[in-house]
């Protein structure tokens, strides 16, 4: 019987009610994003004549507009569904790239130390000291704003914290005796890094990955607000909140629903991440 360390991860994930809930929420958001044009009869950017009161105020949730309308008389539900596309791309792609850079830098600096490590970490510190928003604005100003550029800018700003944390953990892992033991049997550096250090970093990577989703979604919103993010009228959860936040008192639903969507998505990834962390740790096996 061949040894399969990852056998049954999916099956065991489905056994956990909380993980199931997380998967369910992600599935809904995903389906909403993909099927948006078919789920709603409205265009996300169409300013409807009956979408505003006579005085020009947005409508609260009602039978026609389930989640109400925004300041320009657009259907909020439609905008949230279409906005899910943007936010998922930002939250997954930008966050994923940031995680990748951060892990790569952190692991390299933590394992090899020496001048490579010092140089990498000094650079990380420099990036950390630089105001993230200013950096994002600079980068966004250089490139033509588009969804993918925004994702890249966010990734370039967000990898630093991950790198710091991964660096610390890698350097303490490299001191552990089993890493010495690997060296004595002749294991190469890539093998030690991939087979013996990375699996131990997985919990940290998962936690930072799930935490990063809400951060990146909000950073995208900030950039949109400053006019250098996703360009209006394209909807994203972040820019829906920012467009409407000044009317929070008068029209709370305009902030509440997209806010709840961000929260639910972040929570869902958190639940999945938590379960994955336990499942992938063999020392936790057999415990609920």
């Amino acid at each position, binding site marked *: 019987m061949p*040894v399969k360390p990852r056998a049954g991860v999916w099956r065991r994930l489905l056994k956990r009610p909380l993980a199931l809930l997380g998967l369910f929420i992600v599935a809904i958001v995903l389906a909403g994003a993909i099927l948006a044009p078919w789920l709603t009869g409205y265009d996300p950017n169409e300013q409807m004549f009956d979408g505003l009161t006579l005085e020009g105020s947005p409508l609260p949730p009602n039978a026609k507009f389930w989640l109400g309308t925004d300041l320009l008389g657009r259907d909020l539900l439609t905008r949230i569904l279409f906005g899910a596309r943007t936010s998922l791309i930002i939250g997954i792609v930008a966050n994923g790239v940031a995680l990748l850079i951060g892990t790569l830098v952190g692991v390299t600096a933590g394992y090899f130390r020496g001048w490579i490590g010092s140089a990498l970490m000094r650079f990380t510190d420099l990036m950390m000291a630089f105001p993230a928003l200013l950096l994002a604005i600079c980068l966004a100003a250089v490139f033509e704003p588009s969804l993918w550029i925004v994702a890249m800018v966010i990734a370039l700003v967000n990898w630093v914290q991950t790198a710091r944390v991964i660096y610390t953990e890698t350097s303490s892992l490299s001191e552990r005796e089993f890493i010495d033991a690997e060296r*004595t049997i002749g294991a190469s550096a890539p093998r030690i890094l991939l087979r013996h250090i990375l699996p131990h970093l997985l919990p940290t990577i998962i936690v930072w990955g799930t935490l990063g989703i809400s951060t990146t979604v909000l950073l995208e919103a900030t950039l949109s607000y400053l006019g250098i993010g996703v360009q209006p009228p394209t909807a994203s959860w972040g820019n829906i909140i920012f467009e409407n936040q000044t009317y929070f008192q008068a029209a709370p639903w305009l902030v509440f629903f997209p806010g709840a969507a961000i929260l639910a998505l972040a929570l869902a990834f958190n639940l999945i991440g938590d379960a994955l962390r336990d499942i992938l740790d063999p020392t936790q096996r057999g415990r609920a």
Partner: protein
Amino acid sequence: MSQSLREVPSALAGEAVLEIAGLSVSVRGEDGEREVVSGLSLSLKRGETLCIAGESGSGKSMTALAIMQLLPQPAGRIAGGTIRLRDEDGSAVELTVLDERRMRDIRGDRIAMIFQEPMTSLNPVLSIGRQLTESIEAHTGVSQTEAKLRAVAALKAVRISEAESRLKQFPHELSGGMRQRVMIAMALALEPDVLIADEPTTALDVTVQGEVLELLRDLQRQHGTSVILITHDMGVVAEMADRVIVMRNGRMVEEGTTAAIFARPQAAYTRELLAAVPRIGSGARRRASGESDGAAMQDKVAVVKDLQVRFDLRGGFFGRVNRRVHAVEGISFSIAPNETLALVGESGCGKSTTAKALAGLVPYSGRVTIGGRELSRLGRDERKAVRRDVQMVFQDPYASLDPRMRVGELVAEPLLIHSIGSKEERRERVAALFERVGLSSEQMELYPHEFSGGQRQRICIARALALRPKLIIADESVSALDVSVQARVLDLLKELQREFGVAYLFISHDMAVVENVSDRVAVMYLGQIVEIGSRDQVFSNPRHPYTRRLIEAVPVPDPSLRRTRFARLEREIPSATRRIGESVPKLVLKDFGGGHFAAVGD
């Protein structure tokens, strides 16, 4: 020579100060509540030393924590039984029902405790003086000046020199032995009725251990303190105890006077335990010394010439190298096939660094020749090939296996790395290795945490054997194991040597174990070898004073050989850290014939 009864006020002698009846302790874990101490009854007489002996998991430490009402919270609790502390006038306090505030008054004042790890049981950011006076003030309410006087007296009592100036020092400025003496000073400053010492010398070097034990004995004689000494070391038991309780799996297996337990152990477990204890002088006869000496250099498995390892210490504003640790200072030795060379010495002597240099884990200078090929002359790939011949088994079997891999994969990994065999062949070979080291091949699918310490060390041995090396470096490989497990692992190592002809570099601080396994012995002190020779030469005829001191300091598991005085170090072991440019006196080894060399003129 057996020691006579202690000088305790005759009226009080024989009267119990602590009585435990039917004590049960439970700890709640992942899988429900588990009883770690069951129905333990004992009584401690005034001025008596009672040893609780047992292996890990026997419940001996839990008993101590239960008496102190310091069980791990919220998981641990006393499930039943009574613990009575008796006053001199005969009145008793029941500790199990005492509230926390009143228990605090008893802790330190009437029952004191010292722990195993002197490095962690002192607060690193408070001075010694502060920590000493704090407990004195808290319990007696005397003035600060009075508390300070008492603290100085306590330090003097534990034979710490310049006691007044020591008060201003911090724990990191003291050596391990000094710290443990400070702990004893703290424990005894309030003259408690009962002192509980939980493995007080386990973390200390053997020469320091002797001193600390002697100190405990003297102080007890002076104050008439009753001592509960918890230990796994039967040598310490024989040296210290009036009475012994042997525990296993939370239950008392046997109780008796020290002489009776050692001479006529009743329980089978006690007999096993005593039989497993390594003793100096009981090692089986090995090959005659000097047999391997005639072999040509090419036949040696490993030849080490002038090995040097130094670590730079950076300091100052620009982080320049200003000092160096001379961990290994020009040592030379060789190992023949089928031979066990033991490297002994106390912590910081450079024995583990030597092992790491040989295994290629730290950079070194000097010549290392493995199987006739000198490493520094080889290219990278060739060096990797030669390294296959040297494998290592580490001290801590819990730390040296990647916890996220199945043990079968771990043992197969060396084969995979050096591309040996097909997947199926590797599997078969790993299965065979598992059977060989006394595990079953079905266990290959499990993870390291599912094994006991001894089993894990067997896995590490299987892993080291996988590449059929010529030399296995065993760096304190049995030190972390219980004695009975230790004996079985040592037997396995010997069997494997007979079968595969592998040579061992056996690194240990334990003279008794070394005497049992080695063919030749090298004694290290401050990075240099002070004596090297066959086992019989070094143990029966030690030439260097340090070797003699090491051998004498080992507690002998026989109460009839109890010593009244331990060999004492004139000074603390000096540091191997030196300034840049400072020269190191190189020891000259004198030939005493038959391959026996020792440094002279020190």
